[in-house]
């Protein structure tokens, strides 16, 4: 019989074969031992990995659902929703509300259930319920992820409280802080913003919190109503038609400084903050009115 070219691979002796088998066993054992030695480290790397991925997912959820009210940077929007990226929030808030659990539980529960009640609130918006368990849109893992994202501000928030990096917290009127000044967590009373000259309306629309409730792009029509406050997509055309005798400029100006004077049908009085007249200069308000009524409004 012709021997094939690979005949050098033939092993004939049973002892040699058994030897090879033993080598195989030893190799497997060596590899498993190596894995065993690094197993602890591998597991902690995996643990960190999944926490990290959770924060990534949470960031996406926050941007799409929460940033509108709590601010893209998490520092809250005045009158709309409180800051979360805040030293006060990480150090003092639980004590002030008398919460016995951890901050993690507090955030998770608040996200899950929302704050869907309007009694005693200084905030323009209620916080919707987010968990699917209570009728919201998020699965449990999403609630967990967005919680992880919020808590991930901690390191940064703890550096707040100095002049160049103030704590953005706006105190709740219904839960005054019990913090002693020496505790370090300054629940700063709302400081009058330094006069910086008139700010552009685009910026004010966000920083004053208007964007939390009013949608600039959607038109307000009978089958497309803003859920909390009217949409403003078609405000330039419609503004003059609400109150007889008030032209568009007067109407919009009045609606900013004295929101309750006229309430669009289907919305409640008292939702929109009453103090914009004090918080913005006359110049700023006029610029805002002109901008809102500009049909080619630029962001």
């Amino acid at each position, binding site marked *: 019989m012709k021997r*094939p070219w690979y005949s050098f691979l033939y092993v*004939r*002796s*049973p*002892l040699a*074969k*058994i030897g*090879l*088998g033993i080598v*195989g*066993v030893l*190799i*497997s054992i060596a*590899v*498993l031992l*190596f*894995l*065993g030695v*690094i*197993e602890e*480290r*591998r*597991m*902690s*790397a*995996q*643990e*960190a*990995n*999944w*926490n*990290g*991925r959770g*924060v*990534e*997912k949470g*960031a*996406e959820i926050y*941007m799409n659902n929460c940033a509108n009210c709590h601010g893209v940077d998490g520092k809250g929007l005045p009158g709309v929703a409180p800051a979360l990226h805040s030293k006060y929030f990480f150090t003092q808030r639980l004590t002030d509300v008398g919460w016995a659990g951890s901050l993690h539980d507090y955030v998770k529960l608040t996200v899950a259930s929302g704050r869907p009640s309007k009694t005693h609130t200084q905030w323009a918006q209620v916080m919707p319920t987010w968990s699917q368990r209570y009728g919201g849109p998020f*699965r*449990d*893992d999403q609630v967990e992820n967005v919680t992880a*994202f919020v808590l*991930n*501000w*901690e*390191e*940064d928030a703890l550096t707040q409280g100095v002049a160049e990096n103030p704590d953005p917290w706006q105190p709740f009127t219904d839960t005054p802080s019990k913090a002693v000044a020496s505790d370090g967590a300054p629940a700063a009373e709302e400081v009058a913003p330094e006069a910086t000259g008139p700010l552009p309306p685009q910026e004010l629309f966000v920083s004053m919190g208007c964007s939390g409730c009013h949608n600039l792009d959607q038109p307000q029509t009978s089958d497309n109503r803003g859920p909390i406050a009217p949409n403003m997509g078609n405000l330039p055309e419609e503004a003059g038609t609400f109150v007889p005798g008030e032209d568009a400029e007067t109407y919009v100006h009045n609606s900013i400084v004295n929101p309750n004077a006229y309430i669009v049908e289907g919305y409640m009085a008292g939702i929109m903050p009453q103090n914009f007249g004090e918080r913005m200069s006359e110049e700023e308000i006029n610029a805002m009115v002109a901008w809102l009524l500009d049909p080619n409004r630029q962001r």
Partner: protein
Amino acid sequence: MAVQPEIEKRGFVQTVLDAADDVFTRITAGIPAGEVRRMLRGEAAGRPNPRLKPHSETFLLHIKPTYYHDSVTKFTHTFRLGLLSTYLFFVETITGLILMIWYAPTPERAYVDMIRLLSNVPFGQFMRDIHRLGAEMMVLIVTAHMVRTYLTGSYKAPRQFTWFTGVILLVVTLFLSFSGYLLPWDQLAFWAVTIGTSMAEAVPPKVVGETVNLLARGAPDIGANGLLRFYLLHVLFLPLVLFLFFFVHYYKVVHFGISLPSNEEEVGQDTANKVPADRRVYFLPDVMIDETTFLIGFTALMVAVTAFFFSAPLESIANPQSTPLHTVAPWYFYWLQGMLKIADKTVAGVILPGVLLVLLIAIPYLDRNPSRRGRDRRVAIISGVVAGIVMIILSWMGTPYYAVQGAPAVEIVQELMPEEGMGPVREIGYQHVPLGVYDTRERPESADEEFNHILHEFEASIAAFAEKDASFNNAYGILEVTQEQPSLKRITWKINWLSPDGKEEHFVRTFFLHEDSLYWEQYGLKDFSFVRPPTQE
């Protein structure tokens, strides 16, 4: 036992030695120590053969033939692929049972359990990787085993039924793999199985299709019920079917004997069971040592590959509301996906695979040629090779490279930072993505060499698409990396271009990247950087 008279007669030492040999013989089920020594020296057995006893004494050996024809014990005759298939099923059963400990088949728990398995169970990742690798190997090996029996013509009379049970085993293996695929409950699993079961829906007539679909998924869409059903199929029903058919298959193999190489016998004859005395190779010890050594070697290989080169994927948790870009089937179903791209669901998803299966079963009856010699089987072998090539081409068509290009901007970002999985940016990771704004029009450079590669790729990819695609003009990209939070960077891809009628268009996609995130590819050297974490400061 009357020990005392024994000792008196034969002496103390001899009696102890005899007793020891007696115990040894019981353990080996009939082979005394001296015979084992002769086996290890490679000496032939005496007559009558004292090495046959274990075959009648023990359960596991009674299903093994006592001797083989020497020409079928050559590795290159069977490549031991049938043995390997059996062994892989065994490995899958053991590792699968271990995985079951930490796994609960509900949408709330399945994915979380996977994460816990990876991060909290010692050797959990290893078990999962080896189960997944074993599954893919099993599909591969069983198919290779079929190809070998096809090429040696072993399906011909009298082995038609062996072939038939083999086809059933192949189908069950594929279904096992497919049902296991859903269990991790991530996007990859969910969408592959959604697409797969949607083919069942295409079975005509409509009532039947819908019913089959409903039975498999347990609801119009895969959810808690579907997961439970797939789980039960995977861990109970299909393994039992495989087990049963394996024994039928194996009984037939032993009953007819493994077919001899075709040049060992006359055309049309089957002499596998008439082995001349001088050509017998006994199972004990020769074949046993060969098989054991072979399986040990294979195990060592598998352990090493699992440890260093294979990582079972785990994407984001299954989300029925969002279909990821470029969903793909597991590779062994690429060919189906390829067919689905060129024909409709009923034809490509039901009729053609059905025809294929019937053809496969019918091969022994279609091929009336009695000869198993390659020379006489030109038609059969060429059609086999052509079928193989068609499968490979269809499989290639099943990959996203064929006929599913989205909009250029979407594809450019997908290439660098896919929605799911790793991609080059996540591969270099958080540390190598410096903060800044990088505009491809300005040939941006950063201090990080690895990141510069990404920038170049971004630039090149935009240029390549701009050249190919007439609706993608004056394109440029801006990559913005900002610090979102401690340990979290925001990566924003912006691509601007002019449409054919000169309108400015843009596409924006934002991702976040955490410092601790590890992403990995399924195949390739594993990342062991965690062994020595980067020392900070």
